[in-house]
């Protein structure tokens, strides 16, 4: 299609509102009679609630309600009693009944006519806690005799994931080199700029309206309904524009608290976290610990891989179980192994519950594994590019767990990123860290991801979409996947626009609202573009068929002779006789006319095209064998760093990222996704770390929890390679998460290349790098002395 938008850079369709400050995020909305809610959080990491007295708080002028666990509605079987619930493990309570398990656990909540009154009331709620021994470190939590958070789950295990395939012994016997390494990644705050904000209204008949940013509205309301003991259909969830999330704003306890406060007061309730509350109790990326044994043959081919993972759930389980499962085995769709085994434990500690974040366990494993690949390459004297090519999956391959690689341009990614970065200029890492000055290094890493992951919520496989023409000629598209700021709405508008022969700016993409959007699991697992895009394409085709048939009736034409272009249906010339005013080749009808006449002919109904997409995947069974995703994206990144060897400070001075994400719908927003992913990776690699001492987050602010600023991110070179993905109706794969996944190891490998020091624990702060350099010098000195002594 010559006039198509797909493949060309296109401004986000909602960018005009964004640059004019007219985009209304949740905190910008005010409902009539609205109250302000605030949460009283536990100041102790572990304890029994002996007494709560809310009487003084209730006397504060303007306070309309104070709720505690005693006010929670029944949610047990047959509407009786309270039972815990949760998205993966039933360990959520809305408000703590008898026990608090982390500093920040929700104990009570207040609704008042002003934020000030609500804050004053919070201070007047008296709670008596009987402290219990607490455990903050996941390794300590696994030890016998450690304090137990959930008596019904002894050993503090929230969940576990085990997988094994192939003959490990046979594979290991062929080994020429075995690497055994320990790596760890740290707790990261999503640090979206918009603090968590929600509005709730209660209606008669146990019905609610909730305005809350979430990736997964249809799934979230199921969790909320379980918590409230109602049917999910009673919750209408409207997703407003979201000021960033990156995985944090999935399912949030505050939504249920707001709903209950609204129920109790009969007034709408708005709740907005302040930054310290958001950063301390708004959930984090989990820390992961890896023990990895990798066996290779003489040529650098991977034989076996054994992995043990320990991860922190925090005090309750949010979305971390699938994160840990991903860390345990997704790498097996990047590289081939003859045999693999992984066991992963998710462990309770008295800390803020962790949840998923962009990269979802895969980025963590790649931090460890991509460094080990470089270690192996160095030991075996193989080029880092070459060793990756030798082991990587290729198009048409079936992986050890049955995942089918429909397309892969990973080799092209590697070649291209090596060329762009001048990777051949890379010198071997120095044996001795340089004594002074700044040392430069280049580091390579590859990564991949899924494009939707069926096992995560198999009941919502695929996506549906509607394309609609209203009586005034306006086109709109509805999908069930919220735009989370990445530009999904623009991409689906572009796909629809090209099918319908209009400009994307002529298409409205409806906000996701469970009252009238197609049901979908939402925007997660890098699925939205492939799933929603394919559904929109199908819906647009259905729409076009109906539209042309109707236009054919009006014009007296065979629909096959009609085309839809530039906002009108045209009867193509060449049919022979010239027609009357309406009818005959050359005649046309605008969308506005068609919309009006369709509505008139159908008692006011809009013209609606429906479409859906069910990806060709194979749901892994109990043996975890199958093909969970329709497509797999790949990427190769190179970082160039400058290490100040006297202070340990690392600066990323250059960055190159080459991606195979199948067909690129919007090169401008796609480039932005990669740039943003790389920046997040730089932050994680070099400066970000949620510091917890005694269960308390010590840096819940942007001064001490540093995300990269303008001067911390270098100009980046981003390119896309690869062809259309055959298993995807629009040819796309995914990008959002593969953008982040290779960043940490690329930087860590570059630091090693610069100073000859390998850092096993993220982040590579100046102090961590400085210490590693000191340690390396001491080791070399000791070794030197030993040699002298001999």
């Amino acid at each position, binding site marked *: 299609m010559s006039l198509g938008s797909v493949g060309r850079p296109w401004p986000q369709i909602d960018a005009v509102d964004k640059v004019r400050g007219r985009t209304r995020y949740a905190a910008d909305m005010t409902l009539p009679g609205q109250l302000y809610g605030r949460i009283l959080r536990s100041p102790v990491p572990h304890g029994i609630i002996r007494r709560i007295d809310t009487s003084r708080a209730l006397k504060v002028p303007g306070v309309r309600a104070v709720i505690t666990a005693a006010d929670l509605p029944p949610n047990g079987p047959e509407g009786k009693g309270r039972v815990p619930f949760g998205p993966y493990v039933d360990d959520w309570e809305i408000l703590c009944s008898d026990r608090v398990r982390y500093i920040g656990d929700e104990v009570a909540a207040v609704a008042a006519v002003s*934020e000030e009154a609500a*804050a004053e009331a919070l201070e007047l709620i008296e709670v008596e806690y009987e402290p219990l021994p607490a455990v903050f470190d996941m390794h300590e939590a696994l030890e016998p005799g450690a304090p137990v958070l959930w008596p019904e789950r002894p050993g503090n295990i929230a969940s576990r994931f085990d997988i094994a395939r192939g003959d490990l012994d046979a594979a290991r016997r062929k080994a020429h080199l075995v690497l055994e390494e320990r790596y760890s990644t740290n707790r990261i705050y999503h640090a979206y700029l918009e603090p968590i904000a929600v509005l709730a209204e209660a209606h008669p008949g146990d019905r609610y309206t909730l305005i809350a940013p979430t990736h997964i509205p249809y799934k979230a309301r199921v969790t909320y309904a379980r918590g409230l003991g109602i049917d999910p259909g009673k919750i209408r969830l409207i997703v407003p524009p979201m000021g960033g999330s990156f995985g944090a704003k999935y399912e949030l306890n505050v939504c249920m608290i707001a709903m209950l406060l609204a129920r109790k007061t009969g007034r709408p309730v708005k709740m907005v976290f302040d930054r310290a509350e958001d950063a301390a109790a708004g959930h984090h990326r989990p820390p992961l610990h890896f023990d990895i044994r990798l066996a290779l043959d003489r040529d650098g081919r991977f034989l076996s891989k054994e992995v043990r993972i320990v991860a922190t759930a925090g005090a309750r389980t949010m979305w971390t179980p699938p994160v840990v499962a991903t860390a345990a085995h997704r790498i097996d769709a990047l590289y081939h192994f003859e045999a693999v085994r992984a066991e992963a434990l998710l462990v309770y500690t008295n800390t803020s519950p962790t949840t998923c974040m962009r990269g979802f366990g895969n980025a963590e494993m790649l931090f460890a594994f991509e460094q080990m690949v470089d270690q192996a390459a160095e030991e075996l004297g193989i080029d880092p590019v070459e060793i990756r090519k030798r082991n990587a999956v290729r198009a048409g391959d079936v992986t050890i767990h049955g995942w089918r690689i429909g397309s892969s341009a990973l080799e092209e990614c590697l070649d291209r990123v090596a060329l762009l970065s001048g990777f051949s200029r890379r010198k071997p890492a120095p044996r001795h860290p340089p004594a002074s000055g700044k040392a430069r290094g280049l580091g390579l890493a590859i990564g991949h991801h899924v494009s939707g992951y069926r096992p995560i919520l198999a009941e919502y496989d695929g996506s549906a979409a509607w394309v609609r023409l209203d009586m005034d000629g306006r086109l709109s598209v509805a999908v069930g996947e919220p735009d989370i700021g990445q530009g999904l709405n623009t991409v689906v508008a572009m796909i629809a626009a090209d099918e319908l022969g209009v400009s994307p700016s002529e298409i409205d993409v409806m906000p996701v609202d469970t009252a009238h959007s197609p049901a979908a699991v939402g925007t997660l697992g890098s699925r939205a573009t492939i799933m929603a895009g394919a559904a929109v394409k199908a819906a647009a085709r259905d729409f076009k068929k109906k539209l042309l048939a109707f236009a054919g009736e009006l014009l007296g034409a065979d629909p096959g002779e009609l085309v839809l272009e530039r906002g009108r249906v045209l009867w193509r010339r060449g049919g022979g006789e010239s027609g009357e005013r309406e009818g005959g080749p050359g005649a046309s009808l605008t969308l506005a006319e068609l919309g009006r006449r369709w509505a008139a002919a159908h008692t006011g109904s809009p013209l609606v095209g429906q479409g859906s997409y069910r990806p060709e995947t194979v749901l892994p069974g109990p043996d975890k064998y199958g093909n969970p995703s329709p497509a797999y994206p790949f990427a190769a990144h190179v970082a160039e760093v400058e290490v*100040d060897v006297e202070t340990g*400070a690392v*600066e990323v001075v250059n960055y190159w990222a080459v991606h195979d994400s199948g067909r690129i719908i919007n090169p401008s927003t796609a480039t932005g996704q990669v740039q943003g992913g790389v920046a997040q990776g730089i932050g994680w690699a070099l400066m970000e770390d949620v510091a917890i001492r005694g269960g308390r987050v010590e840096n819940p602010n942007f*001064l001490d929890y540093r995300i990269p*600023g303008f001067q*911390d991110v270098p100009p980046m070179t981003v390119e896309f390679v690869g062809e259309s993905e055959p298993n995807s109706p629009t040819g796309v794969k995914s990008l959002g998460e593969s953008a982040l996944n290779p960043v940490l190891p690329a930087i860590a490998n570059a630091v090693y290349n610069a100073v000859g020091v390998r850092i096993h624990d993220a982040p590579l702060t*100046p102090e961590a790098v*400085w210490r590693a350099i000191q340690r390396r010098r001491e080791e070399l000195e000791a070794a030197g002395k030993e040699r002298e002594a001999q």
Partner: protein
Amino acid sequence: MIRDRWEYVRAETLAGALTLLASRSDAYPLAGGTDLVIAGRLGRIRGGVAVDISAVPELQGITAFPTEAGGVRLRIGAATTVSALLQDELVQQKLPALVDAGRLLGGWQIQNLATVGGNMCNASPSAELSPPLLVHRAEAVIAGPEGSRRLGVDRFWTGPGKTALARGELLVAVELETGGASAYVRHQIRRSVDIALASAAAWVSVEDERIAGARLALGAVAPAPLLVDVAEEVAGVPVRQAPGKEPDDPGAFGPALAKRLQRVERLAFAAARPITDVRASADYRRAVVGVLARRALLRAVQRALAVSEDVETRSG
């Protein structure tokens, strides 16, 4: 959410400000607000009366006046914003360390609000402006109910958040000597807005390609910024640009200075009494501050020799 409660009063004159400040024990001067408003919001101060001194005439402006020795002395009003400081041509020419530090103090929005006096009186051990003021031998001009007095800034800061100001006293201005060359470097985790993990300012005067005088001050490694006596270590040392060396290279200005710089580093290391906190460990701060001391001195020498200016003032 902390509920700080403030009364707001605006002072039009210095006398008025002093009266207001003396009127209540919970009276705080308010200049740019970047420390006081945050302190209230974070619950470090529960409120009181904020006396807005930003419009008091005596606290305004940057003025130069000649000294008896034929030099130039600069007076910087306490209510001068960091932006105004950075835009002042005399400051740019005469007090390069202060410009280095000002550029690193917060982002542009903070620089447009924060004042020189506020940064001094907040008395953070890591305050950017303190080491440069120390090496330029700044004097605090203080007004109080008993009249006014002057105090060398080496005696101005007495601990974290503590100054030598008595109750009811107000910092009116700071006065500095000009001459010589200076530089400020800091170490941080984030290159964009951050707080110094450690910092150093150096001042040198060079005559006939020899160091005539030198001063060094360190930040964020003690309860208050530290002046370290290095004059004897480097006095008389010949300095000449060594070809092909980066300005951060210890040998950039010849082997004699390189050797003395090792001792400067050791002095800085010995003087530092840092703490461990969420930002960095004490031993790391200590190791780094020696490096910073050396780099600050090298940059000051570089400026004294008026060789090409390196505008990058971050260490890392």
